[in-house]
């Protein structure tokens, strides 16, 4: 394995790296995917706020520098799969207005691209990973795009509350 030639090496097997590796492999490329930390078993992923911290970054603290340092450990993962080990499995889209914050709200900067430019890629990612839901019934706020490729899942009480909001 160490001397085997590959086409692509991807560092990080999280949401981006793993999907990218899958797309490349399907296209016939030989891919190596690298990640750090334990290779957790499914049975290790205990449903608990406390036990769930096992998959959060461990070891040396992350250096926080700069004018506006922001904590990172809460969003990151530790192990094969990266942050997808504990992500919320939601795929909300940016809204068209998010790309025009400066011109519409006088804050931050406008993006050099618009929602319409990225919408096809939202659709592609949804197809590749199998996002489920009913965009018309459940996400009245969602901007234009293809229907989700998978049917909606059963909602629980907190989901019902979000739907009512």
């Amino acid at each position: 394995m160490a001397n085997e030639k590959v086409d692509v090496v991807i560092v990080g097997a999280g949401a981006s790296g793993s999907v990218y590796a899958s797309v490349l492999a399907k296209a016939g490329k030989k891919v190596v995917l690298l990640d750090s930390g334990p290779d957790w078993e499914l049975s290790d992923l205990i449903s608990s706020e406390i036990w769930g911290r096992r998959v959060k970054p461990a070891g040396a603290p992350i250096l926080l520098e700069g004018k506006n340092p922001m904590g990172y450990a809460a969003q990151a993962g530790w192990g094969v799969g990266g942050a997808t080990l504990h992500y919320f499995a939601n795929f909300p889209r940016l809204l068209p207005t998010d790309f025009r914050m400066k011109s519409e709200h006088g804050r931050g900067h406008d993006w050099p691209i618009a929602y319409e430019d990225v919408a096809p890629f939202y659709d592609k990612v949804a197809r590749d990973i199998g996002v489920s839901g009913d965009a018309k019934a459940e996400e009245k706020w969602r901007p234009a795009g293809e229907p989700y490729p998978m049917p909606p899942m059963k909602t629980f009480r907190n989901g019902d509350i979000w739907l009512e909001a």
Partner: protein
Amino acid sequence: MRWLLRQAELKSLWRPEKRGRATCRSAFDAHQGETLEALGETLVPQAREAGIAHYIDQQISMPPHEALLQARIFNIRPPFADFYRSAIVTIDESSRKLFGREFALLSAKDQHEFVDRMRQNKIEGWTGRSGGAVYAVLRADAVDVVYGTMEGYEALGVPYMPHIPPEKRW
């Protein structure tokens, strides 16, 4: 002499066996244990009975990468014991200046007053990690032991619905 008396007084307060916990080893002395319990109880009622001192004690006694403490998320530099011990020293120094006694020996009213000032970084002469940061970590620990378990969810009336239920609280 006064210190010895206070130690004896505190020892009578922090008795982990009263909460049904193992007592064979502890990273904290009686004073530190009682101070953690008093801080936890001030931040989240029931934290003392839920075992906040035991929880922190147990978690700082294992390798940092295995610890379940929120300190990991708050980017505290291991060993985590250093954070808790230095926080207790600073809290007691400030408590003596403000109220004339260590935090664990204050009335509940004064403990709340102290924590409120600590939360807002409004204690003069505070050293080490900011009062707000100490508040955030200790409060997170107290919330964990009171509400972060299956028993805590049940007490709140929230269905737990686990895919893989935890076999132990922590």
